[in-house]
């Protein structure tokens, strides 16, 4: 594989380094995993908070 095609296929973020790791007592988590867990919490909260399209109409009419 030549360097040009490698550049084209390169990731948006520079991944050419060891993973960044967060330490807290015996807990050790990579930053990427922490971001994914944070995103899951955000999606969970949004799924509860955001109204579903047509939900009010359906509840108003016959089920």
């Amino acid at each position, binding site marked *: 594989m030549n360097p040009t095609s490698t550049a084209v*296929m390169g990731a948006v973020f520079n991944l050419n380094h060891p993973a960044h790791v967060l330490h807290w007592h015996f807990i050790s988590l990579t930053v990427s995993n922490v971001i*994914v867990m944070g*995103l*899951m919490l955000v*999606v*969970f909260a*949004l*799924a*509860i908070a*955001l109204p*579903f399209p*047509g*939900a009010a109409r*359906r*509840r108003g009419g016959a*089920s």
Partner: protein
Amino acid sequence: MSAPTTERSWTVRVREAGVGALPPEKLLPDSQPTYVASWIYIFGVASLASLAVIIGSGTILALKGPAWWHYTGVGHFFNSVHMWSVELFFFVMVVHLWGKYWMSAWRGGRARVWMTGAITFLVAVPCALTGYVSQQNFDAQWISTQAKDAMNSVGVGAFFNLTNFGQMYSYHVLLLPLAVVGLVVAHVLLVRRHGVVPPIELDRRVGS
């Protein structure tokens, strides 16, 4: 010797038990209760959709082989589709699990629905792990030599050897996917049988 009567044949008994447990209108309903119109209820079907992409992309990878998925552009694409659909599967499955946990989805005789879902999650973890060690690259070698210590520490290393590629590949493309798909089918059929769990306050109102 007299032939067995039609009513006593095993096919009739299986059919009657199947239709009794899941009549067609329950198996393939044309509507759902109004409380299902909420974003929190979409993560189960999102898990199913990602699982379908995992199985489809994995089948193509298995047909074409490691030289294809490592050295061709289309192979890289399907390799990435497979990996990211697994990421998505776990992401939406965890949100589905949280949603069902906080609405106590085992209520109303739905214990088996909850248990099949929880076991699916547990079986999906080694299914993904065996995939990481089946990549046929240095990443796979690194993960297998690191993870074998975890397996040995819990006493399963003797029959689940992460450095045995043939064994891991068989687990990844046959045994564990079969278990995951079987559990998911059972989970969905149980949901159809018992219905989607209602919100807790609705349950209380009906009960009072």
